[in-house]
């Protein structure tokens, strides 16, 4: 059971369809992995259904005839079997699978962690999968914009707590933080950033120009 569920207002933004693709992807993975978040979404979607059903409007027979004519060429589809993750990517939850092209693979970044950049059409967030070896940390950094994290494998710990598979974290804001991967499996997480991070450690500070120019 997961212990860090996204706040109600963010789940509402997701349920109504108001989020940009990057944050919406983060929420979809959280909802896929966290039963509590899923229950809240079920209630919110039921609320949407109730609001929809409360609308009163007369039937439109002309539109119905037009649509029925279209159905002659539209089959009722068989349910689609979920796609299968390729070897090494068994940890990928279903909503993420179609964003991971077969050519995409881990790229070694500074500081001993790996990254896969995801490109969501029409989205300005920086969306990445990060993989951190057990016991390894990310360079000390802070955020200037919003940051959403969903743990997909393993776990990590920072000053705000311990995060396991399915947990959702909202960036700690302007304070520095230094997440350290837990022992055991490598920690894999989806990270959605509104702005590039700012490295604040003695070594990291020199790398900021590269981060800003999107080189790392």
């Amino acid at each position, binding site marked *: 059971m997961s212990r860090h569920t996204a706040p109600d207002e963010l789940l509402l933004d997701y349920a109504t369809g108001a989020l940009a693709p990057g944050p919406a992807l983060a929420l979809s993975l959280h909802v896929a992995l966290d039963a509590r978040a899923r229950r809240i979404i079920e209630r919110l979607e039921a609320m949407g*259904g109730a609001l929809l059903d409360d609308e009163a409007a007369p039937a439109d027979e002309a539109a119905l005839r037009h*649509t029925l004519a279209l159905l002659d060429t539209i089959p009722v589809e068989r349910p689609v079997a979920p796609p299968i993750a390729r070897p090494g990517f068994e940890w990928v939850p279903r909503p993420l699978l179609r964003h991971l092209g077969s050519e995409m693979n881990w790229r070694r970044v500074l500081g001993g962690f790996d990254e896969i950049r995801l490109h969501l059409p029409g989205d300005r967030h920086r969306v990445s999968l990060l993989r951190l070896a057990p016991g390894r940390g990310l360079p000390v950094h802070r955020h200037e914009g919003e940051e959403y994290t969903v743990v997909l494998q393993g776990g990590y710990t920072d000053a705000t707590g311990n995060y396991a598979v399915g947990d959702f974290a909202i960036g700690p804001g302007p304070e520095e933080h230094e997440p350290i991967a837990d022992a055991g499996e490598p920690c894999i997480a989806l990270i959605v950033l509104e702005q590039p991070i700012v490295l604040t450690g003695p070594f990291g500070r020199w790398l900021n120009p590269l981060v800003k120019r999107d080189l790392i």
Partner: protein
Amino acid sequence: MLSPDEAADRIEAIAARQDRAAFADLFRHYAPRVKAFLMRGGTDAETAQEVAQEALILVWRKAASFDRSRASAATWIFAIARNKRIDLARRAGRPAIETEDWLTVFAPEVEDADKSVLAGQTYSRVKELLGGLSTDQLVVIKKAFFEDKTHAAIAEELGLPLGTVKSRIRLALGRLRDALEKEQS
């Protein structure tokens, strides 16, 4: 009028035998509602009509994926209409969202241990409880659903502090949670 059970029966009839009469019942009930729902959020009549028709065609195509133990018909059709609206907003050169992806409710990664609560019951109770929310809470909830705005955008529009809007949302959901969990435990 179509009760939740009758609507679910109609969707299953489409899945079982491409039942056009069942489709017509659903269309008569839901197409005008989807259109009205979208127009409340400022969508123009022509676009709303188009989205409503596309949403109902998706109900036909995806009827076999409907599972009444997971969601009521109204909830399912709301989710379809919502995603049609997202597609519309992103239409400029964007691939459509995969139906299976956005119907999160219907494809949990891990089977929930407790499926003792029927989706239809949740739906009926949510519908009742919606009427019991305060006006302040309802204003925010309705704006979110009809106008497709984030809570931050709603706070800005209403000239309210972000914390006030968050607490209204949390109170509204808290009331639903308390009522549903008391009954279901």
